[in-house]
């Protein structure tokens, strides 16, 4: 198997993202299966980084299963989180909703 940086964990071969074992700063270069990926954002411990180009509307795959759809184009090395990925089942809430207001989808 080709070389992969130990800080990247891809849980299943069909995954298009990897989790990072420690916080990675933007600008670092990580080798994944022999290919070098330039990290575009700061990615905290355990969070997700795109391994390949993911088109808007395309499924994001982790554990070999879809965990939602990309809300916009995601480039390799980009941080994948609530700003560019949404659930196909239920909205994800953050703490910012107004008391008494209709609770709305935040992302």
């Amino acid at each position, binding site marked *: 198997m080709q070389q992969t940086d130990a800080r990247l964990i891809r849980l299943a071969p069909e995954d298009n993202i990897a989790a990072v074992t420690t916080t990675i700063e933007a600008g670092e270069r990580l080798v994944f299966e022999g290919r070098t990926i330039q990290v575009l954002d700061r990615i905290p411990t*355990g969070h997700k980084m795109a391994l390949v180009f993911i088109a808007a509307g395309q499924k994001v795959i982790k554990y070999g299963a879809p*965990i939602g759809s990309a809300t916009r184009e995601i480039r390799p090395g980009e941080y994948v989180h609530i700003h560019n990925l949404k659930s196909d089942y*239920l909205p994800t809430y953050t703490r910012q909703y107004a008391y008494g207001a209709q609770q709305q989808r935040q992302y």
Partner: protein
Amino acid sequence: MQGFLRSDGRKGIRNVVLVAYLVECAHHVAREIALPFGNRGVHLIGFPGCYPNAYAARIMRQICTHPNVGAVLLVSLGCESFDRSALAEAVRQSGRPVETLVIQQSGGTRRTIEAGLAWVERAIGEIQSVPRAEMTVKELVVGTICGGSDATSGLTANPAAGRAFDLLIEQGATAIFEETGELIGCEQFMARRATTPELGQEIIASVEKAARYYSTLGHGSFAPGNAEGGLTTIEEKSLGAYSKSGKSEISGLIKPGDMPPRGGLYLLDVVPDGPVRFGFPNIADNAEIVELIACGCHLTLFTTGRGSVVGSAVSPVIKICANPDTYRSMSEDMDINAGRILQGQATLEEVGREIFDRVLQVAAGMPTASERLGHQEFILTYKWFEPIGPACLPA
């Protein structure tokens, strides 16, 4: 390991005295009775509602006759609708010392507390003579739950708990995983692991029910802290949570208060049946732990990334910390450091084995972190369930 032998043949790993309030109005009196006993194995539980609820009555009965329980003091205000006589009778028939104090008939707060303190003191002495008997892994019932999940939970602690589940089930133990609302997106994978196609259909239906329920409420089983911890969607949280179940086949689907008939892996459906009523299915992690205990769990494996501190009344909680940073800042609250896997200091296999060994140690009497710190959380709220279908249990 030695267990406390109960008259129904089940064996407990603890021998606690319960003080149970039957309505919030009796909570203070019950707490004042339990508190002075500190670490002497007297636990406070209760149901706050004044209106009747068959689910709550059943859970209270299962908890009060749980193998870890040696004696029960019921504290009633007097006018609430909880059927205190039926509960007392069920405990009496189980061969345990039981007493009911009705505050309105006992002269009020102070006199009820005095009577309660005296009864608990006697009960502690009385249950010292409960017979001990050899207990094997086969007789253990172990639950699992995650709380305060983050993106490390599904990488370390959850799959490690799954390995421990596989080891327990291999040796004939009963293992229960739960929260169908946190298995949304995993239903097809789970159905394939069911022992029969009919059970597979029941599992899919239970997750679809959870998705409907949560979508009516406008909220998934997903806290803001989950997103701050790097989990983006309920599917992602679910897939991580799902790995707690390990790889064994799924033998049955049960509901709160149902006892698995034999060893193996069971899914506990915690989302109520019928139309949405009474609010969120489980308002916090301890509501799920209480339901696992009501299904007979002797102890619970609790995985956390953000850092939960909870324990439980009745059954010990083993906390497995997924995140190495959290472990560093909260190590006193944790039993197992699964974050070592991320740092390359241990494999999933090794941590899974460590959890399995710890289960046996705790079953043999070793206190968990939350027991040492005095945690005894307990929550019980209103719910409504239909009985499980015929395909849900092994033939």
